[in-house]
């Protein structure tokens, strides 16, 4: 098991290296760089730009130098915790993003937990009572959850909250808690804001999870070991929970890894609509303004999340499935 984790860890580092190169290449792809659009913008407003400042910036980041030189300058900084400077905000990238990435992880993490808590019982119910009224209802609700775009759901929720309760849903904190330290009242304030975005973010995933769980479970319930368990005299609920559910979960556990980044990229529009201080909107903006170090840092951190998520999935899977654990020894 330890060897297994060590090997996965090394694979993870190599993946990250590859991802960082690709991420850097992508932010370099658009013609020009931030400085050209910066100069153009200043020029259009009639401002004069000091050529020496531009020159300094070019030298500092190696702009105009070959790709590998720029990459090398960037990645060596990143490894030392220096993610570079945001051109647009004129501040270190790290200062800008850590809070937002934290908010993202918190929101998406809560959404994942809600998803599993809702999907697990419903999926099991739908499979065990196949073709019952409840099964059809969950299927219909599931399709609605999948079909309605998240941002639309967010808008509906905000509209209803406003017309019915006169409250505006949006943001993650009340103004007075925005910059405060974490404390019990701040947690409460966060929760009273966060339930709506978490609900919105969890819908599509919940629907998907119910669908997959139901299908997996129906497959597993046909297997002979379920009959064996019944033949022992176990009550039906125990048979279902201990045997087929356990096996139906295996493939789902491996999806936890890519759930996180999928949620982050899927949440950009929701975050814009609901005015959430998460990483998504910032990534969007940095890409349009070619603020490359900011964009690069966010993409890299999201990749790190994905890869860590995958590692967690792999370890969980090995823990619950002896066939994988022993196969990987």
């Amino acid at each position: 098991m330890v060897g297994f984790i060590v090997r996965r860890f090394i694979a993870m580092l190599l993946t990250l290296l590859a991802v960082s190169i690709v991420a850097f290449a992508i932010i370099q792809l658009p013609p020009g760089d931030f400085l050209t659009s910066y100069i153009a913008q200043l020029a259009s407003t009639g401002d004069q730009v000091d050529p020496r400042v531009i020159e300094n910036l070019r030298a500092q980041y190696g702009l105009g130098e070959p790709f590998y030189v720029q990459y090398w300058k960037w990645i060596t900084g990143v490894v030392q915790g220096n993610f570079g400077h945001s051109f647009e905000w004129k501040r270190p990238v790290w200062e800008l993003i850590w809070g937002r990435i934290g908010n993202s992880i918190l929101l998406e993490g809560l959404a994942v937990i809600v998803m599993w808590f809702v999907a697990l019982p419903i999926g099991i119910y739908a499979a065990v009572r196949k073709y019952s009224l409840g099964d059809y209802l969950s299927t219909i609700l599931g399709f609605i959850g999948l079909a309605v775009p998240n941002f639309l759901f967010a808008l509906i929720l905000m509209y209803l909250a406003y017309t019915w309760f006169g409250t505006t849903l949006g943001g993650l904190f009340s103004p007075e808690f925005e910059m405060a330290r974490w404390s019990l009242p701040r947690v409460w304030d966060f929760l009273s804001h966060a339930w709506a975005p978490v609900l919105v973010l969890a819908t599509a995933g919940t629907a998907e999870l119910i669908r997959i769980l139901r299908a997996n479970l129906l497959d597993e319930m046909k297997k002979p070991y379920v009959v064996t368990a019944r033949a022992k005299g176990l009550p039906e609920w125990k048979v279902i929970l201990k045997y087929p559910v356990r096996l139906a979960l295996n493939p789902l556990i491996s999806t936890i890894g890519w759930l996180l980044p999928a949620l982050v990229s899927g949440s950009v529009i929701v975050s814009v609509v609901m005015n959430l201080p998460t990483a998504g909107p910032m990534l969007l903006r940095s890409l349009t303004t070619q603020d490359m170090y900011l964009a690069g840092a966010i993409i890299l951190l999201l990749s790190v999340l994905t890869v860590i998520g995958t590692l967690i999935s792999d370890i969980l899977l090995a823990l619950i499935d002896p066939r994988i654990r022993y196969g990987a020894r």
Partner: protein
Amino acid sequence: MPQIPMAAEPILAIKNMSITFTSPDEADVEAVRQVDLTLTAGKTLALVGESGCGKSVTARAILRLLDKSALLPSGEILFNHGQGTVDIARLKPDSLAMRSIRGAEISMIFQEPMTSLSPVHTIGDQIDEVIVLHEGVSPKKARERTVHLLDQVGISGARERANAYPFELSGGLRQRAMIAMALACTPKLLIADEPTTALDVTTQAQILDLLRQLQDDFGMAMLFITHDLGVVAEIADEVAVMYLGDVVEQGDVYEVFRSPQHPYTQALMNSVPHLRRKADRQRLSPIKGTVPSPKDRPAGCAFTSRCPYVFEPCAGTRPAPTEVGAGHLARCHLLARTKMEALA
């Protein structure tokens, strides 16, 4: 009913049982039409027949393990649990009464020892579970029993093997583990549904030996399902031959093999190869035609469409059992007629 001596009292008596599968968009299928079987302590009854004739369905009906779509519209399954009899056919499949019989008084082993055990639980866990469930002992005590059982079914290094997962064991060992699980609560009846079909010949022989020896030790009755007449000859005391949902002939294994009475049984015996010199070999005589589906079964004797001796009552009337020897019954109009003539 006349008083029968204790020793001969049957553990399980299936009387005129039928099993129908319903389906929302198709006509009902009567998979099993009439089955009468009697199982006695310490004896093995082999149930033989071609694929699809309803052997597994019959076996599962005894433990009420059939799908919800299966009905038992007629017949009784009388189980003698020592303090009287219950009719299993009238119990609800998930009722406490039924569950306390499963695994404790009647247990079952299956054909596929790989897929019949959970791949993600150790065999020890899976055996402990049934002991804890029915006897309420502590998991630790249960494990002691499990190790003893594994030892008894010939698994060496039982204590370590209890912590093994099914995929770490060979097919033969898995089937032994399966047997240990079935015998964990010393059941009165063991149902074995083709327990050796998936195994190679040598392992098959070892498992049969083991079952015979365990029957001597535990004294349980055994219902042994197979389509291999060689296996029947080796393990059974009595045999029941099924064709398309009907038990067509049953009796002492020696009796039935020596003088099969039903045309289907005769045909079945003729389709078994005997070891002969090449020059002396004859072509096997397989039964002509194929097994019809239960939907196309004649209203009368199920064998009508393939029987070489059909005459007029066969297609329309179901033959009643005729006693052709001591405890040797066959359902065939021919036999009924000969008997009538003999009496006349």
